[in-house]
């Protein structure tokens, strides 16, 4: 099975990285990398919350029957999808202060990542909502459910499992994109690795450890997504 195969691969990679690192006295740089990993985790979790919220808000908004809501959602999606994440981060951290809005590095990073990936996620959610059979909406109307209840209670619960693969994909993408937050002065794994390398010149082991840490994070998301999807589709009929 695919999942088992990559679990084994992750384990081997992890052990290998650990072995190499141990062999080359990892204690001189590992604490700094773990501090970096903690920053990466913090930024990832906070950004993911914003990312998922924006995905659903804008994804649902784009299909709303009220035109201005559709416009605002579309503008948001196009602006944040169409611009570089690095430039967005620079904007939040270096440009906004000249308009009187001063953000901390963490705030700037979370806003930048969350809004940027929320724009991609909104399209995933929109696709998932559109994939829910039309008959579900019609049955809701025939049962006289108000539109918003039919969206919230009938359509969205069926759209979520459809959206999970795409959203977990984007979450992995987003975790890797946290490497850019050094641009707003945060010391994440990537930046910590670069710093440690400049101090200790142990290029091979430092970057192996960094890679393994990223890989473990992505596998965590992948498994989490797969488990969630399996749980949510347990009672659903297979497509005929």
């Amino acid at each position, binding site marked *: 099975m695919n999942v088992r195969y990559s679990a084994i691969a992750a384990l081997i990679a992890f052990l290998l990285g650990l072995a190499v690192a141990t062999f080359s006295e990892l204690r001189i740089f590992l604490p700094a990398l773990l501090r970096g990993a903690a920053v990466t985790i913090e930024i990832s979790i906070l950004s993911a919350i914003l990312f998922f919220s924006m995905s659903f808000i804008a994804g649902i908004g784009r299909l709303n029957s009220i035109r201005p809501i559709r416009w605002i959602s579309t503008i948001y999606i196009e602006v944040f999808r169409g611009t570089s994440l690095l430039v967005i981060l620079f904007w939040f951290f270096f440009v906004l202060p000249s308009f009187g809005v001063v953000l901390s590095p963490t705030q700037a990073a979370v806003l930048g990542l969350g809004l940027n990936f929320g724009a991609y996620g909104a399209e995933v959610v929109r696709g998932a909502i559109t994939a829910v*059979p039309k*008959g*579900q909406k*019609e*049955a*809701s*109307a*025939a*049962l*006289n*459910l*108000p*539109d918003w*209840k039919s969206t919230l*209670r*009938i359509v969205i*619960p*069926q759209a979520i499992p459809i959206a999970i693969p795409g959203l977990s994909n984007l979450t992995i993408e987003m975790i890797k994109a946290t490497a850019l937050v050094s641009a707003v002065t945060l010391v994440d794994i990537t930046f910590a690795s670069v710093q440690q390398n400049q101090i200790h010149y142990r290029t091979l082991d430092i970057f192996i450890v960094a890679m393994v840490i990223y890989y473990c994070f992505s596998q965590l998301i992948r498994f989490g997504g797969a488990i969630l999807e399996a749980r949510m589709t347990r*009672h*659903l*009929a*297979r497509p005929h």
Partner: protein
Amino acid sequence: MTEPKIRFDKVSKRYGSLTVLDRLDFEVDEGEVVTIIGPSGSGKTTVLRVLMTLEGVQDGVIWVSGEPLNKMQSKNGMVPANKAHIRRIRSRIGMVFQNFNLFPHMTALDNCIEAPIQSLGLSKAEAVERAEELLAMVGLAEKRDQYPSQLSGGQQQRVAIARALAMRPEIILFDEPTSALDPEMVGEVLSVIRALAAEHSYTILLVTHQMGFAREISDRVCFFDGGKIVEQGLPNELFGNPQNSRLQQFLSKVLEAR
């Protein structure tokens, strides 16, 4: 003179250049069981869909118990109905679909209590009590905690009927309720509909290809073609002595296929 339960007044529905309902006049009395037959594309399903407000119409007025459905009275005369008006009128109508359209993420019972709670505002206890009665009526009391994917097609359609009845409609629309079923499951669904029709406490509009069943339960059968009623009458007359040539053709084809 009593107002008919449903009245189509010169209703037209077009998709681009295709006319699906052509200035249709059509009345159904309270408690009447009317079956609509006709070739595909004749507009028979559209009658149900516009009545359920799943689709709009271009011209004409649809009346339900003497109140307009797609229009409403204002000081400037009749204007297009707003959502609140449509919801108020269509609460009298329930619909059973060809593909059941049960909510797959909910159990049979949850399917039947969702709208009564969320739309009618019943308490959960009231809704459950009513839903359990209805599931028992369609013979599925013991399936209350099963999900649709765990039920056969016939069972799903019976849950769908219970779900529609849970909203206490006055009018029930059946859109080819047995067309998606395996042959051995048709009977169980028809017997539920037969029981409802015999009660005459609901006004029933049925679109079906089950001619024998239509003949048996209907008070009146309407033959649709080209978005109009071409011929209508008592089932025995319409099936036994069809006047219109298109109806004769249609019946001979349908009966041949059996």
